[in-house]
């Protein structure tokens, strides 16, 4: 091969190797950046007035006066929307319109009675089934005014009351048709068949029109109900009575965060889901833009009002919510913080340390100070290696089968069982790192201690251990980080997804929420996972922060130790 080729290969391989490092750095940034950015959003965010209401009413925190000022401003803005909604629900001209419709109906039947002679003539001219369309046409003529009024009402003033009124109208029409039969019977006795036909066909055209109108009204009402639901989700209950009747906390308050509120505005207020029937007759539900689909109706006006007054209604302001770390969660993490999970992780980590650290240190002392290379010691060492190679989920199953189902350290999952399982998991790491730390203690220390007449045990306790302590601590702290972050071993032994913190006295019997497990749970099994992204990111960031904090403490400790050894 030519020298130039070899040089090119050499250079390009260097570039390749450097780019692999660059890829790893890029991966670190790509991984940490979204988690840090979104996770900090759990603590520092644009809060709406609902957030401060929640703090004031549930946690008794924050200034009542400031809240009152904010509430006043937002209520003023909300009132515009609410007045539109109230106007829809109980329209002012409902009485007038319904009265007009009712009187038109009465007038139509009176006219039918008046024209009874003419009508009977029609019946005489068209015998049998042929009479049906003629009767219908006659009815359509009489009910023309009435139908016009009904269609007009459906177009302009649909409301729940109107839907009810139109349902009543249907019965009134049928009753009226039955009553008008008697007027016809005065002219000539009608046969049973004829009676039935007249009763059916006379109001048929009006009924059809009425049916179309009430369908339109009920569609409008369904759309309005969806819109109202969206507004409730966004702003919270409209009235105090609604608030008291609401059971779940998410129904008592609106959106507490501006980013989620904007999402809810876009998805559930400006767009709503309506049911429709597709070409093959299946019922489908689609999301439609209110301003387009309901153009010119009161609903579109409401949507416009909601969009225009959105900021005023929510009263956003930037806040630090430290309570995210120190508050309990409310209504499955939709409100409040993640304190129980942090506490649970703390219990489990400390518990694992209580079991693993002494065992690990003692085993390390044995391996480094006492053990001679023999078959037994080699076997013991091999077992430490094997234990390190056991998959973490197998530890979880072992904890379940042995600690809970066989030894019964507790009735079911408990912090104790989880701690022991985690302790077994991190034991090999602790043993190895402690052994390394003991090995770095120079032999001269040992010889000096023994030379001064100390026994072996005394030399270990007073000279070797203190010298190795920083190194051991480094290993132990790194293992703590590992224990804090492990999920698989605690799934079957300690973790629960309910959000209540447990007292220190309950650690022997109770399962606890813990950060790693709850991160999984809140991401995969939460009913409203897309609305609480900030909690998910916040939890992940908290866990990573805890672990990295422990690791950086360990690294600082190690650096100091190295300096001390060098200097």
């Amino acid at each position, binding site marked *: 091969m030519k020298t130039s080729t*070899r040089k090119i290969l050499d250079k390009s391989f260097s570039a390749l190797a450097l780019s692999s490092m660059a890829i790893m750095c890029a991966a670190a940034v790509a991984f940490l950046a979204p*988690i840090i950015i979104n996770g900090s959003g759990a603590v520092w965010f644009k809060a709406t007035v609902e957030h401060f209401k929640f703090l004031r009413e549930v946690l008794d925190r924050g200034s009542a006066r400031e809240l009152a000022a904010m509430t006043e401003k937002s209520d003023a803005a909300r009132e515009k929307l609410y007045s539109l909604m109230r106007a829809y629900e109980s329209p002012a001209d409902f009485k007038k319109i319904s009265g007009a419709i009712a009187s038109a109906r009465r007038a139509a039947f009176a006219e039918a009675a008046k024209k009874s002679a003419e009508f009977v003539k029609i019946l005489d001219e068209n015998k049998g089934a042929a009479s049906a369309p003629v009767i219908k046409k006659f009815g359509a003529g009489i009910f023309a005014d009435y139908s016009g009024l009904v269609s007009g009402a459906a177009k302009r003033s649909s409301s729940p009351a109107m839907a009810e009124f139109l349902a009543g109208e249907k019965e009134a029409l049928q009753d009226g048709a039955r009553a008008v039969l008697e007027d016809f019977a005065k002219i000539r006795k009608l046969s049973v068949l004829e009676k039935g036909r007249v009763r059916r066909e006379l109001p048929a055209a009006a009924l059809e029109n009425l049916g179309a109108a009430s369908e339109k009204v009920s569609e409008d009402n369904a759309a309005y109900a969806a819109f109202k639901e969206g507004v409730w989700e966004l702003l919270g209950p409209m009235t105090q009575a609604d608030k008291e009747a609401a059971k779940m906390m998410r129904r008592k308050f609106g959106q507490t965060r501006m980013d989620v509120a904007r999402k809810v505005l876009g998805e559930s207020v400006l767009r709503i889901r309506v049911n429709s029937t597709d070409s093959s007759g299946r019922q489908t539900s689609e999301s439609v833009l209110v301003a387009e689909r309901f153009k010119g109706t009161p609903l579109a006006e409401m949507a416009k009002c909601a969009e225009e007054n959105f900021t005023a209604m929510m009263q956003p302001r930037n806040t630090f919510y430290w309570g995210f770390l120190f508050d309990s969660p409310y209504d499955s993490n939709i409100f409040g913080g993640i304190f129980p999970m942090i506490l649970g992780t703390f219990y489990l980590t400390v518990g694992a340390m209580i079991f693993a650290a002494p065992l690990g240190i003692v085993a390390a002392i044995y391996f480094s100070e006492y053990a001679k290379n023999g078959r037994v010691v080699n076997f*013991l060492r091999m077992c430490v290696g094997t*234990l390190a190679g056991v998959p973490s989920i197998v530890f979880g199953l072992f904890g*379940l089968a042995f600690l809970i189902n066989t030894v019964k350290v507790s009735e079911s999952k408990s912090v104790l069982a989880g701690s022991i399982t985690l302790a077994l998991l991190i034991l090999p790491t602790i043993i190895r790192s402690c052994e390394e730390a003991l090995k770095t203690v120079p032999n001269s220390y040992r010889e000096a201690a023994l030379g001064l007449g100390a026994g072996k045990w005394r030399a270990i306790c007073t000279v070797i251990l203190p010298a190795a302590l920083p190194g051991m601590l480094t290993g132990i702290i790194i293992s703590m980080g590992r224990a804090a972050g492990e999920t698989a071993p605690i799934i079957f032994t300690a973790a629960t997804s309910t959000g209540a913190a447990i007292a220190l006295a309950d650690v022997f019997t109770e399962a606890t929420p813990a950060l790693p497990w709850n991160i999984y749970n809140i991401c995969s099994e939460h009913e409203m996972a897309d609305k609480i992204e900030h909690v998910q990111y916040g939890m992940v960031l908290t866990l990573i922060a805890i672990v990295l904090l422990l690791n950086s403490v360990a690294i600082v400790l190690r650096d100091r130790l190295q300096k001390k050894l060098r200097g």
Partner: protein
Amino acid sequence: MNATTADTGGARAKGALIMDRHSCAAKMLLGRLGRGFLLCVTAVPTAAVVFILFFIFKESLPFFENLGNVREFFTSTNWAPSREGDPHFGSLAILYGTLMVTVGSCAVAVPLGITAAICLSEIVNARISRIFRPIVELFAAIPSVAYGFFAMAVFAPLLQNHGGIMISALILAAGLPIAGVSSIPLAEFASSKIFKKPSPAAVVALRIFAGAALCSAVAYAAWRVSGVEISSGTNAFNASVILAIMALPTIVSISQDALSAVGRDMREGSLALGATRFETIFKVILPCAKSGIAVAVILGFMRVIGETMVVWMASGNSLKIPEPFYNFFEPVRTLTATIAGEMGEADQTTGSARYHVLFAMSLCLLVSGMALNWLSQRIISRGAFARKKGGK
């Protein structure tokens, strides 16, 4: 005490100095007891291993008692362990998913990890290496559930919406430079085979031809991939990539140790003979460090097989073997995810058929983990690291 005994007379003074027989025996006994205690504590990991093996085996025994079950376990894909009266335990799809994810992640992690290790130990200087090392350690420290979350919340939507474009861009970015560079030695090799005395023009022509062919092959692959529709962002590819990131720290740090254990004399000898750094690395250092690197790969492999949360959250948990079998953009399911996901609250105490089959799965994991561990121990004791002492 010494002072008083010295006053009282010779014989007693002598006894106090070398201690009388009783206290000597007591001390010996105490020492023995102490050692025994230390040994007992040291045996805890051993006891744990024995207990783990015993209990996992005991709980999976009811499943293995029925040989038909075992055959079904390894040959069928019909997985319905809790169906009333007619349970099925076909885990072929699950085993295949595990294999797929493991192979996929190793395909990403091994080249990347070894090159990164070479870079850290051979190419950059010690100071930069000290800066990079914590980044690698950072990957090891981050909890697996955080990786799983990232895979699910960030990577999966990205993959689902822009997956084809992203991967084809990656292929182009990585493939074109490699194709360009590798065309040079390829052309030289080919020309030396074809012509007896290659003229420079012929070499250049061959080089252009080889470069164009390789680049167009890369471009074609990228074009094919860019058209792939990824129906679900949580799939084998996603899990493989994230698992690869998790396995990287293990591979990098152990390979780096193995590489730096190769003696200075080797390097200097090779360089003095006129080899370039590239040749030194490939022909001298890598062969010397190969068993250490093999251990690194095995340990990375072990981490991937035993990992639970990432595959549970990122692999899509589908009970089908992908169509075609090498399609990494299909959701799969692994042993660990099955164990974590299927061990319901009810099963944990009653000991149903599902309970036992899940323990059988964990026995598979345990056995493969132990086998790999044993293999790595064998390689280590064969003396790859023995050179560390001898070489320096």
